[in-house]
């Protein structure tokens, strides 16, 4: 099976609220999956479950050969294979861009300082920020911070990248910068799952669109499905989203 990620009937509640109610989907190697849906439909939660940030109550999640639903899961090796980028960047404010990126390779992979620095420069170059290596997060614009966050994940050479509304905190111009980086990644063959509100981007870049509604996957299909929704819910959603 070439699926890098597969969710089968995943269930998750917060207290009495059932947030994921039998979610199933697959993402194959090199695929770019866009998860869309209304606020509160469980998109972020699904993403966090894939990365074992939340424990699930039912169903199965396989990610790059790791059984994430297994209580004996070794989270550390899972996370070497999976990179995640959040809406709020979550850069470490006390470290420069470069140090932010070097931290995990030196700590986790035991790479030497010099090699890690080279690596950091390289991924910074990929997101177009060579010049900002020595800046602290608060010296960077939102878009630049988000790109550093992406670079930080890339430095661990993950097999799968997760993006959770990485552009919603940004104004249109900064959004453009970040989307460009993501497009490059997609072209480079990276497997990606992204939660997004940018329908245009989803249409253009995603090889698969997953529409979530009330804690389940309501509709899946190629990017073109957005132009021809089958369910009234997706039709309403796409209509309002423009």
């Amino acid at each position, binding site marked *: 099976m070439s699926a890098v990620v597969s969710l089968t009937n995943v269930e998750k509640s917060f207290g009495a609220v059932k947030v994921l109610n039998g979610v199933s989907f697959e993402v194959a190697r090199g695929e770019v999956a866009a998860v869309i849906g209304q606020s509160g439909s469980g998109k972020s939660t699904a993403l966090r479950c894939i990365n074992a*940030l939340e424990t699930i109550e039912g169903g199965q999640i396989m990610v790059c050969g790791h059984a994430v639903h297994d209580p004996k899961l070794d989270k*550390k090796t899972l*996370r070497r294979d999976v990179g995640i980028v*959040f809406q709020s960047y*979550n850069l*470490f404010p006390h470290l420069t861009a470069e140090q932010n990126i070097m931290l995990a390779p030196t700590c986790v992979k035991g790479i030497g300082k010099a090699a890690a620095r080279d690596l950091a420069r390289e991924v910074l170059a990929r997101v177009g920020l060579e010049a900002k290596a020595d800046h602290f997060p608060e010296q960077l614009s939102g878009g630049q911070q988000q790109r550093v966050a992406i670079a930080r994940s890339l430095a661990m050479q993950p097999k799968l990248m997760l993006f959770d509304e990485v552009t919603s905190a940004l104004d249109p111009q900064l959004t453009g910068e970040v989307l460009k980086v993501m497009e490059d990644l997609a072209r480079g063959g990276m497997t990606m799952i992204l939660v997004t509100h940018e329908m245009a981007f989803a249409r253009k870049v995603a090889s698969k669109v997953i529409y979530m509604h009330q804690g389940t996957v309501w509709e899946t299909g190629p990017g073109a499905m957005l132009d021809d929704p089958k369910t009234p819910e997706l039709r309403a959603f796409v209509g309002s989203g423009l």
Partner: protein
Amino acid sequence: MPTFTLIHFQFLCWAALWTVGLSAIAFVGGGIVGFGVALARISSTRWVRILATAYIQVVQGTPLLILLFLFYFGIAIVGFKEVPAIFAAGLGLTIYSSGFLAEIWRGCIESVPKTQWEAAECLSLSSWQRLTRVILPQAMRIATAPTVGFLVQIVKNTSLASVVGFVELSQAGKLVNNSIFEPFTIFMVVAAIYFVLCYPLSTWSRSLERKLNVGRR
């Protein structure tokens, strides 16, 4: 009829050195123990957390006077008679300051947003690495000002070490008073020495706080 002389003043100054020494012991000891307790306080294991909370509650809920007394003589009852006063006073003060420092530092650690823990976790850092490489450097900036502020409390509270026979600044003041009966002069001088010791610390703590707030804005 004796009056307040330079000799008395020197005597007080020597005693003030002990005040400083005791404070240093209490601060270093309390810092080490308090750090451990702070970590225990945010541990993911329930009973460790409960134990640490209980420790903090007991230490913060008992007057230092009573703590010192119980420690000094408690050690002797357990069988260590030759324990010098400096050790017992140091231990009592250590326990006392660890209770307060643990609570201060816990607050600082918890004020680092949860998303920072998550981000570090997603980079597959171990929990120790998360703490030392990501959380503590951020918490430390917040913690400096209240920690220095608490140092002032320690300096003043060493005055209670007199119950275990320690002649630090306050006790020295009483001794001088016993020989010359000039409480007003003597306690004013004692107060002034404490002020000289504490005021720079207070000022420092406040300037740290201001710097930090500016940084945040």
